């Protein structure tokens, strides 16, 4: 990459990171996140609107489709910032719906989704751990994140060799609360009153699910970074036996190990995003995404659970913020495929199971 291209990229990533401040309190406080926990619909429509007006929902879509045409590196940088703040508004699932609607050439739902005026979610998941949308006409759709906030649900349905897309207004989802204070919905795939949006979105679905998995990995990266920073602050400040906790070598080495996990996750996520920007497709794309998501899921759970341990008893209180990161990681680590699923997919997709 030339010097100028490099500077441009750095500038672009800095701008997108700075813009994320629009939905986050300057002091990094988690009061808003706490206030929304275990409420319905569980998100702030005004924040969803801000995400729309800043172009985030269509970040990856070309300008002619109403997007702002940025790359996966920018999408991941943004997700990382949102993860740092545990933002509950479902940008990854919303952007997935936007990609499907754009691929379908839809003009009825896409504009209000991109503007953040409507939340459109896609009911693609049929089993607990999956990154595929088989579209079985009869199969219940599970684990739709923040389903109670959706104005419209998209339903992929297998028709012959194609994956048709239907839009259903309103939600009739059964709601289950999740550990992070959010919820997931499930629904039976009824086409009564549904509008057929497209005859086949299978190619777009493949891409959209990969981008969602990578975006989720980036969200986890931001989450673990902030959780780790808070833990380091605590290790520096908390005194026991007359000295700072962070001066004990047993704890220093645990902290060093967590840093290593975070650095590897960053290398994996940023490397995958850069390669996707450079045109990685098909199995190469799937291998990159799976590697990043598997690493991020494992590392996020490790960092957040060790953060609780390193905090000691205060870490086990709901009042102290560190637990919010663990509970968010418990929900997000398996979203768009668990580490085990992605390891298996990596071995199927990577050339020779090994790309070095």
């Amino acid at each position, binding site marked *: 990459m030339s010097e100028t291209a490099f500077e441009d990229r750095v500038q672009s990533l800095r701008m997108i990171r700075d813009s994320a401040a629009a939905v986050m309190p300057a002091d990094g406080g988690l009061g808003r996140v706490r206030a929304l926990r275990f409420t319905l619909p569980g998100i702030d429509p005004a924040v969803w609107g801000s995400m729309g007006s800043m172009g985030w929902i269509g970040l990856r879509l070309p300008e002619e489709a109403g997007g702002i045409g940025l790359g996966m590196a920018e999408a991941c940088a943004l997700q990382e910032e949102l993860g740092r703040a545990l933002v509950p508004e479902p940008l990854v699932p919303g952007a997935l719906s936007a990609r499907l609607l754009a691929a379908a050439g839809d003009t009825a739902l896409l504009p209000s989704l991109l503007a953040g005026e409507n939340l459109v979610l896609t009911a693609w998941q049929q089993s607990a751990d999956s990154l595929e949308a088989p579209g079985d006409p009869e199969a219940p759709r599970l684990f739709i994140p923040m389903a109670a906030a959706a104005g419209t649900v998209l339903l992929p349905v297998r028709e012959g060799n194609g994956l048709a897309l239907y839009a259903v207004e309103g939600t009739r989802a059964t709601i289950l609360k999740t550990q992070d204070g959010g919820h997931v919905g499930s629904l039976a795939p009824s086409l009564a009153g549904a509008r057929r949006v497209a005859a086949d979105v299978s190619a777009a679905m493949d891409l959209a699910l990969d981008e969602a998995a990578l975006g989720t990995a980036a969200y986890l990266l931001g989450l673990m970074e902030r959780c780790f920073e808070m833990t*380091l602050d605590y290790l*520096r400040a908390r005194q026991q036996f007359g000295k700072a906790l962070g001066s004990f070598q047993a704890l220093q080495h645990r902290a*060093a190990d967590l840093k290593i996990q975070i650095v590897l996750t960053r290398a*994996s996520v940023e490397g995958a995003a850069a390669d996707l920007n450079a045109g990685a497709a098909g199995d190469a794309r799937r291998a990159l995404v799976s*590697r990043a998501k598997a690493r991020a899921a494992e590392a996020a759970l490790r960092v957040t659970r060790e953060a609780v341990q390193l905090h000691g008893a205060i870490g086990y209180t709901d009042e102290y913020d560190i637990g919010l990161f663990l509970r968010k990681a418990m929900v997000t680590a398996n979203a768009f495929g668990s580490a085990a699923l992605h390891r298996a997919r990596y*071995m199927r997709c*990577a050339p020779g199971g090994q790309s070095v």
Partner: protein
Amino acid sequence: MSADLPLDELAALDEEAFRLHVREWIEGNYPLPVRHPTRRLHWHENKPWYMALSRKGWLAPGWPRDHGGMGLDATRQLIMLEEMERFGAARVNDMGLVMLGPMLIRYASEEQKRRFLPRILSGEDIWCQGYSEPNAGSDLAALRLDAADHGDHWILNGQKTWITLANDANWIFVLARTNKTGKKQEGISFLLLPMDSPGVSVRPIVNLDLHDEFCEVFFDNVRVPKDMVVGDVDKGWGYAKALLGFERIAIGSPKLSSNGLARLKQLAVSVGKDQDPAFLDSYARFSMELADLKALYEAYVERLKRGEAIGPDVSILKIVQTELFQRITDAMLEIAGGHAGLLEPMEDGLHPAGSFLLARPSTIFGGSSEILRNILARNVLDLPA
């Protein structure tokens, strides 16, 4: 055999063409019977390779051209290293090339440079490095090799240990204690002396691999003239520390783990475990970790290319690389069954026990994994002392 390109043209090739050129030359000119050796070769074994590189002018990729090096940028130096490792070329006796040369070029007098650098490139002088002592390993600055001031010379008394291939060397560079007052880092000088100096004796140490790669060196009233100090007296610690950076990245190269993983796969096929689900799961983890290590390595190389300073966080590369390599060789041992305990390689050349032992010292030398974690905690994570 590839064309004999002048250095200017060689350095001007784009990265891929440069890589292919280097690869072709190695394939056409490597003179030794052994590739991918599982132990360091002695000078009498690797000398033909050293001399082939010497004749080609490729011994010192990182040295400036006016000192007889290739003057390559960091990226191309790493490419040469990667191609050597890829081919499985034996490592030569390279202490003069890798450690001493850059030190002399940066800190030595013109006379010292003229005297020593050409003899390294011609193979006339083979150097060894005397840093560690029995009571100064990870805590190297505690070293005590005593250099007593006798006007125009020092008298050395004491011991060095873990000196790689000292039994091959005709010169040694040492860190010696020239001042016992003040902070322990501040009284250390960097001295040069011939191994045949009266009072120097060498005792090889047989390691776990049953190989005499390391030696102890004893100094009994050894006379070292004052003009054999590099840079200023008492400032040697700073010089030794300043030479990190590139070496730290090179030591984190994923190639060792990459070769290890390839051999693990061959071994699994050879012992009929390549479809075993437990093996496949651990193999998947290794593959992905290796790919992540490679991504991290490339990120550091990018930073080096752009001329960015490399901070102490680079030690993460060494930790990940060496610990991954060890776990890969652990897995070799686990799946090898009875072969795990064999002293000699298997019929197909695979040697799980040899690989396993080869991997052991990597987390000890060049900063043990534990010391590197201390450094990470203090200097990167800013945790208190």
